């Protein structure tokens, strides 16, 4: 070969930016006494009855591929769960696909829909996969900046501004990682009004749907009048049932779109992990209490966290969903990355710079409360000291 090996990598992939947290990850990995508020997954271990169901499926020799769309029993159970929880009606035969985590469902939906040149609207700050998936599909990611003054919600005005004749898809990532923002029914109805006379489809990533706090309720986007026919609903087991490592998610939507997604899925993946699928049936059938309890624990921690940041004088919007708070650190005069790097070196606390979730996250840091109260309080104490040392 007389060519640099890098040149073999497809330019699209070569130019994808690496994840914004690698640097911190490497530093934290070398420290033994650092405490992290950096994770994006539950600290709870999967409920034992679910783990046991997974073990039982292995003991019973269920070690084969399943149908491409997922075990029918699981899809039927999902259909019942969506009905019971959210009054959603999806036919397990044709309108549902079980995937390898919510992430695969997102990738499939974007690949199934986006043609080269199509624009995909992405409210930001948000989870990091929408842009790269869009780019890999040949689409054009168009960020929509959401702001603290709007409680990090997507507003109808901002959406309207960005819709063009090329807009194919709107991503609705709520409850939101990293801001913890939620969209309530009235907010979604405003979005629906804008979309009604367009041909824009919606990918509603509702992976944190079970983690909504106090009096708030999660309203799935397909529940908004006339929106179901244009919406692909993505969800999964990771956050609600503390099953991140099982890699199991699902997509529901119009049967034509699901069929297109199944086509890609069957070639790329074949079927989602069999053990995980059988465990998930148990999760849907017998974990309502566990989910409720985990949610309660998160809510206590959320309050400790918000209270802690406000007490140290940082602006902290009250998040009602997911398990993150997104305090503003602009008053320290540091950029997000400076803040995170210095905090790590001086006080050994790892948090994630807001700009890892899009340029509009600059000036913020993401702190996860998927930790014990004790851990959170120690971290807050250290951050408070840090902020005090650096205040002008």
């Amino acid at each position, binding site marked *: 070969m007389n060519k640099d090996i890098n040149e073999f990598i497809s330019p699209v992939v070569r130019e994808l930016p690496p*994840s914004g947290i690698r640097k911190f990850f490497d530093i*934290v990995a070398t420290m033994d006494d650092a405490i*992290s508020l950096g*994770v994006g*997954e539950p600290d709870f271990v999967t409920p034992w009855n679910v783990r046991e169901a997974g073990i039982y499926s292995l003991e019973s020799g269920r070690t084969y591929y399943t149908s491409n769309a997922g075990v029918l029993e699981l899809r039927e159970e999902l259909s019942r769960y969506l009905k019971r929880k959210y009054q959603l009606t999806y036919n397990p035969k044709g309108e549902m696909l079980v995937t390898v985590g919510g992430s695969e469902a997102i990738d499939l939906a974007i690949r199934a829909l986006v043609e080269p040149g199509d624009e995909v609207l992405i409210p930001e700050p948000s989870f990091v996969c929408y842009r790269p998936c869009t780019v890999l599909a040949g689409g054009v990611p168009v960020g929509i900046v959401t702001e603290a003054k709007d409680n990090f919600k997507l507003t109808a005005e901002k959406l309207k501004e960005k819709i063009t004749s090329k807009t194919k898809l709107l991503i609705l990532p709520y409850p939101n990682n990293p801001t913890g923002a939620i969209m309530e029914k009235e907010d979604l109805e405003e979005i629906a009004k804008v979309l009604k006379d367009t041909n824009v489809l919606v990918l509603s990533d509702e992976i944190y749907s079970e983690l909504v706090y106090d009096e708030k309720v999660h309203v799935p986007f397909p529940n908004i009048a006339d929106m179901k026919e244009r919406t692909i609903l993505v969800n999964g087991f990771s956050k609600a049932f503390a099953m991140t490592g099982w890699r199991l998610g699902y997509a529901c939507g119009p049967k034509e779109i699901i069929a297109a997604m199944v086509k890609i899925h069957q070639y790329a993946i074949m079927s989602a992990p069999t053990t995980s699928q059988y465990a998930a049936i148990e999760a849907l059938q017998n974990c309502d209490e566990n989910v409720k309890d985990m949610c309660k624990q998160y809510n206590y921690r959320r*309050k400790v966290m918000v209270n802690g940041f406000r007490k140290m004088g940082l602006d902290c919007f009250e998040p009602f969903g997911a398990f993150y708070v997104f305090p503003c650190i602009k008053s320290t005069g540091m950029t997000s990355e400076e803040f995170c790097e210095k905090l790590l070196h001086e006080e050994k606390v790892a948090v994630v710079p807001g700009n890892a979730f899009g340029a509009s996250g600059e000036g913020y840091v993401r702190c996860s409360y998927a930790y014990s*109260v004790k851990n959170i309080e120690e971290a807050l104490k250290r951050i408070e000291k840090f902020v005090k040392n650096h205040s002008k």
Partner: protein
Amino acid sequence: MKEILELLSKNADLTVQQLAVMLDMTEDEVNACIEKMKKDKVLLGYKPLINWDKTDREFVTAMIELRITPQRGEGFDKVAERIYKYPQVKALYLMSGSYDLSVTIEGHTMKEVALFVAEKLAPMESVISTATHFVLKKYKQEGVVFEEDEVDTRQVITL
């Protein structure tokens, strides 16, 4: 009120200040609530959960099944009272099923416990029979697993 109890039942270490933050209450409200529950004998006390096996304290625990003839007009309560007044008796429950009272007893040696049963419980007029079961090892108590590994094996940062 129920929420304060739920939180304390998992972790009695929580301060009034912490409870107030977690429950959106003022510290005064939490204090008042706790005082009321103490007064009403809902909240009876706080005790640490100890794995005595890791200390050099020598003692044994036994669970004793008692079959009882209930007393006319007093049912099991009178007998129960005569039993729970012994300081060796750590817990006493009225049970459904093949026996009536479950007595948890602590003593320094198996012999001491056995003698207590033989000399104090068995001779009681209304006691029909006793069966003594010694605890060999405690795996879990009050919802807490004694030897659980609490290492966080998650990646330190994930998006």
